[in-house]
Structures are given as structure tokens and as C-alpha cells.
């Protein structure tokens, strides 16, 4: 009661205040439901949802993608989720609310986009999963990535061609370093390489001295350079005191870096053939210095072109070009995929290939 009396003396009367609130509410409600903005249907909107712009790769590629889509007359909205999944789910929902006609999504974590994907399905919006496959939902329409199995076969083929294994007059010692057991793609890389080299492993032309001949034994948790180095050092110390290692198939550049560091520390013989993947700057420099032999180059502009092309085809009503309809099972359905072709880079073609695509400038490589 005392409180009430104070109100009457010192504050707006509740009645006036409530009337004011009611008026504000009516105003908001009126704007909200009068459908303040209708969208021009001739301009199509593309929503891009990316994990974070702190990760250089996504920052660069999303901007390139935006520019290419804008050239074609699409309106583009990019949202970066700061590596927070709740945020990414909300952002995808907000992109849908902003009338996106197609969503291009790079998931932070493949399986956890649940409700946002349900909402996209509800609104019948096609979702293109870019480079990382969205799993655990049937809402994902297409997948664009590099042919990961092909990455492995390119590494295997390079080893086969350089050593001319078909006409080998001696046997070669080989070791493998594979990727993260938690990464769906790591198995593809390893198997691609092993499948090419299998006949020679069976015939004895290639010999795994350490005997570590399965993905599980060769795996490197989190693609970690130090872990790859530790394992390589252990192998060198145990098996290569008096014999030479001729080939080291590393699935990617961070593990290749570990291997080459181990060799620099605890190996006296001549450098073996070392494979890699991704063309990380430090590894490209190693290739130029002879500390690594090759790396597989996955030109992001190819992936972007394929994705932009896919968006075009979705709107034109033509069947969307895909080149793989059986490999990428996301736990619910097989996602039609477009796989881009990777190429190898070694000392001879490195500078030309990497600079002409604009991946690195000539200054960076010097």
C-alpha cells in the first residue's frame, strides 16, 4: 500500500503508463503484420553461412564466392558464426527469414545443424553443403568438395611414376602417415594412396619396414604436426638405423611437415620422396628447398566455380550437374555430389601453378 501511494506521488500513474504501452504495442503489431516489405521475386538471394572469418580459408573463399555470385546478378548475404554452433543455427534460420532462395553452408560441426536444416526443408530451400558434408539430416540437397579419394590416388600415382615401379630393379622402403581418425576424409586419402600402391606392396617392390600397414596404425590425431613427427622419429630410430627410407606417403602437409622435421633431426641418409596435400605455404617452400617432394593442390576457385554453377542450375530448372551419386552417405541419405579434380604440385610446376591461379603471389614463394 505504501508502495502504491509513492507511485501516485512520484511517478506516472500506472494507467497512463499502461495506455502508453498499449499504444506502442499496437504500433509495433501494425507494422509487423502489415507486411512492411515485399521482396522483388526477380532478384534471387543466396545465403552463405560460414564457421568463422577468423579462419583464413573461409574468410577468403566466402568473399570470392560472394563476388562471383554478385557478378551473376544474385543478391548475397554472408554470415559468420564465430565457431559457435547455436549461433550458426540461428544465423541459418535468419537467412531463411530473409528469404534466401538457396543456402550455401559450411558447417562448424557436421552433425549438429538439426533444427536449422529442418527449417530449410520446411521452406523447401535447397542447401548446398560446401566442402564439409552436413550429416544427420535429409535437408542437404547437394555437396561440393574435392575428390578426396582422388587426392590419395594422385599421391600413389606420383610415387608409382617417379620411381617407375613397373620396371623397378630393386625394392623400395616405404612408410605411411595418415590423417585424423575423426575426419571422414582421412580414410579416403589413405585408401586412395594404398589402392594404387597395393600391387607393389604385395609383390614386394615396396616394403613397409616398420610393418605399420593399416590406417589405424598410421593415423595422426587432429592432423597434428608434432604427433606426426614423434611417430616418424620413433620409426626412424627403431627401423632405419642402417637402411634407407625411400618413400614417405604423408596424407597432408601438416603431417608431411612432421615427417620432414623428424628426418632433419634423426636421419642421416638422403631425403625420401615425401607426399603432402593442401599446398600450405611452409610446405611449398619445403618443396622448393627439396625437403618435401610433392603436395596435392586443391584450387579453391574450382570449388567456388562448381558451387556457383550449381546455384545457376538450380534456378534455371536444369538438372544439376553432379558426378558422384553413391559415395557420400550422410547418415540419412546419399548426397549427390560434385567432386572437383585436384592436381599435384612439385618442384617443377609449383611456382607456375600456384601463382597463375592467384593462390600465392610470387613474393610469398620467394
Amino acid at each position: 500500500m505504501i508502495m502504491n501511494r509513492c507511485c501516485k506521488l512520484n511517478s506516472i500513474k500506472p494507467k497512463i503508463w499502461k495506455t502508453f504501452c498499449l499504444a506502442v504495442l499496437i504500433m509495433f503489431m501494425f507494422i509487423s503484420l502489415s507486411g512492411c516489405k515485399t521482396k522483388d521475386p526477380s532478384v534471387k538471394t543466396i545465403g552463405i553461412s560460414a564457421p568463422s572469418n577468423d579462419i583464413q580459408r573461409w574468410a577468403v573463399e566466402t568473399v570470392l564466392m560472394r563476388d562471383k555470385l554478385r557478378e551473376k546478378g544474385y543478391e548475397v548475404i554472408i554470415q559468420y558464426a564465430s565457431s559457435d554452433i547455436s549461433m550458426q543455427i540461428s544465423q541459418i534460420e535468419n537467412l531463411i527469414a530473409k528469404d534466401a532462395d538457396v543456402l550455401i553452408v559450411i558447417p562448424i560441426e557436421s552433425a549438429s545443424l538439426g533444427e536449422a536444416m529442418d527449417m530449410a526443408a520446411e521452406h523447401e530451400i535447397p542447401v548446398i553443403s560446401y566442402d564439409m558434408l552436413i550429416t544427420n539430416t535429409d535437408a542437404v540437397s547437394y555437396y561440393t568438395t574435392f575428390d578426396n579419394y582422388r587426392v590419395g590416388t594422385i599421391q600413389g600415382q606420383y610415387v608409382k611414376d617417379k620411381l617407375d615401379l613397373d620396371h623397378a630393379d630393386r625394392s623400395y622402403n616405404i612408410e605411411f602417415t595418415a590423417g585424423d581418425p575423426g575426419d571422414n576424409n582421412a580414410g579416403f586419402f589413405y585408401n586412395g594412396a594404398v589402392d594404387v600402391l597395393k600391387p607393389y606392396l604385395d609383390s614386394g617392390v615396396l616394403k613397409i619396414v616398420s610393418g605399420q600397414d593399416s590406417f589405424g596404425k598410421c593415423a595422426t590425431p587432429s592432423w597434428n604436426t608434432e604427433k606426426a613427427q614423434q611417430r616418424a622419429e620413433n620409426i626412424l630410430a627403431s627401423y632405419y638405423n642402417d637402411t634407407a627410407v625411400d618413400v614417405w606417403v604423408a596424407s597432408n602437409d601438416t603431417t608431411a611437415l612432421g615427417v620432414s622435421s623428424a628426418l632433419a633431426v634423426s636421419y642421416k641418409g638422403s631425403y625420401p620422396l615425401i607426399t603432402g596435400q593442401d599446398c600450405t605455404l611452409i610446405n611449398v617452400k619445403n618443396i622448393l628447398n627439396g625437403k618435401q617432394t610433392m603436395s596435392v593442390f586443391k584450387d579453391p576457385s574450382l570449388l567456388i566455380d562448381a558451387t556457383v554453377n550449381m546455384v545457376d542450375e538450380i534456378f534455371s530448372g536444369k538438372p544439376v550437374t553432379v558426378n558422384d551419386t553413391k559415395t557420400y552417405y550422410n547418415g540419412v541419405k546419399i548426397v549427390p555430389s560434385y567432386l572437383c579434380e585436384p592436381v599435384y604440385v612439385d618442384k617443377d610446376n609449383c611456382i607456375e601453378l600456384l601463382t597463375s591461379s592467384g593462390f600465392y603471389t610470387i613474393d610469398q614463394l620467394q
Partner: protein
Amino acid sequence: MKKYLRLYSTEIVFILISLSFILLTSAEILRPMNITAIFLQNSYIFILVVGMAICMSVKDNIDISIGSFVCFICAMGGVFMSIMKINTLLSIILLLILGIMWGCLAGYIIAYFNIPAWVTTLGGYLAFRGLGVALIRQFSNTGSIVGINDSFLKLFSGKIFPSKIGSFGYASLIFCLVLASLGIIYKILSIRKEGSRITSSMVIGIAAAYLLSIWIGICFALTGGVPVSFIWMLIIVCTTAVWIDKTSEGRRLLMLGANLENARIAGVDTKRAVLMTYVFMSLCATVTGCIVLARFHASSSYAGVNFEMDTIAACAVGGVSLHGGKQKIFKAVLGAAMIGVINLGLSLLGVDMNWQWIIKGITILIAVTFDRYLKKDRFE
């Protein structure tokens, strides 16, 4: 002027923030889908803020472990349902038991060993994040556990009274109207019981409440149904509001207020009451964990990141007193809505993430300062 506005400072700040985002987004934030999004995307703040307001009602109490605890609950939910194949109902019961256990433990340490609340819950903040991530790593090598029961997903995510996009879901609107009517009948009955008369200002308030529920109902009807998380939010907000306002247990809890010592001398078992607030807080966090688990459709190590910060921010802008004492659940919920509007508005504007943090921080500081400025002479 100032002294006339002070009673409604939180509401004024809310209206100002809403207005500025309406102008900045050229009213886009008011589109029905975005109104739905405020509830759908921020349901966690609405639920946690209720628990936090109760927790803070006793002087110097706070719980910063909730974000990590949400992550832990998500992980355990995944382990129960996906790995151990326990059915939905039993899983939920087990999760609630875990919630009660942590609430008891934290409350016991704080109340009976006199360890400061923020230190104790800091322990929980660190331990549960680690535990959650370790569990997920243990049972899955992809960073998330999938295969959550469908019935669990239906219970904590998605929509009730689903309607097709583009059509009008009358069921959702009617549902909201029925809820509003029930609430208003309850309000009128309780006014009658106290023996007061219904004044014209009450009629205006009732009209506003009805209008609000019609608006929200229409928004839900246009966007495919009532979000399940909205229902959970309503259940928790309403039961808590009734509990602390109408029951002697709840009122006793708030009576502890700013001075535990006085309450203790007056014969209240203050330690038990403090313990109860933590149990309640942890139960709110458990429900939030279930909602997040269902929203992700998987238990993920990223669940619950920064939830405690959003919740404390909502409490701050909602005028929840950090010194204990009587809390108004309604104001805390308004604070949660404010954080929701800020989150959504910044996302709609497409502001760069780092700038979003900066703007959010500054907005909260201004909101709290303005709120305190309006209220100032009440404390003098």
C-alpha cells in the same frame, strides 16, 4: 521527468532498444518470422534467466557453471539415448537427477562450507565443459554424438500445431488465445481473492496482454506453428512466478533478501534455502540442456558456449539486483527479451561477429547505466 519514469525504467530501456533496432533494420525485425525467432533462438536465455533471478535473490549468489552444465547434459543425453539405448522418459529422468545432484553439491558447498558462489561454480564451469567434451570424444570420433531418440526431439524441439509455410495455422492462434485467457482468468481470480476491485488501469493491462498474445499467436500461425521451446519457456516462467509470488515456500525464499544474517536470527533455515536455489538453477539448466540437445539433433561439444554470460547480461539489463532481495520474474524475462532482440537485431544487420560482441557489450553497459540512472533517487 526522471522521477516520473523510474518505476518503469526496465520497460523504457526495452522499448528504446526495440525502437532503435526497428529503425536500423527498417522494421525487418518485426516480421512474423523474426518475432518467432526471438523466442526460438533465445529460449535458453528465457529459461536460464528465471533460475538465475531466483539464485541471485540471495545476496552474493550467482551460478556461472550453467553454460558448461548445459554442455554436460547434452553429452550425457547423447550417451544415455544413443550409446546406452535408454528410452526417452528414463533418459529425461536420469538427466533431471543429474541436475538435482549438481545443484545439491554446489549448493551444499556454498551454503555449508561458506565458499563464495562464484568460486564454486567456476569449478563447475571448468569441470563440466571438460567432462562434456571428454564424454563426446570418448563415444564418438566426429565431435558429436548422433542418433538421439525421435520422441525426445519431438518433446524438446520443432513445432506443435504444425502448419504448412504460406498457410495460416489457426490452431496456433487459438492455442495462444486460450493460454492468454487462462492467464487472465487466473489474474482476475487472484485479484478477487485479495478483495481488490478491478480498476480501469487493470483493464488496459489485460487488453495489452491479450493483444500481445494475439500478435505472437499470429506470428506463430504464419511461421509454421508454436515452437516447443516456447512452451517450455512459458511453463517454467509461469510456474516460477506463481511459486515465488503465491506460495509461502517461495515467499520465504525471497524474504531472505539482502540479509541472510537477519533471516537466520529470525529462525529461517537459510542454508537449506540457499541450497534449494542452486537445485532450482541446475534444473533450469537441465531443461535448457535438453532443448539445446534437441535443437542440435546431436550432442555437441559446442553446446552452451557463453550461455552464462548471456544470462547474467539479461539479469543485469532486467534490473535483477545483484545484492539479493525481491526479484521480479517479469523484469528478468523482459531482460532476456532485450538480449534476444539485441542478438537477433545484430544478426539481421549482418554485423561482423567481433563488432557484434563490441556493440552488445556497449549496449548492455548503456542499458544498465540508464536503468540505474532512472532509479537512482530511490536508493538515495
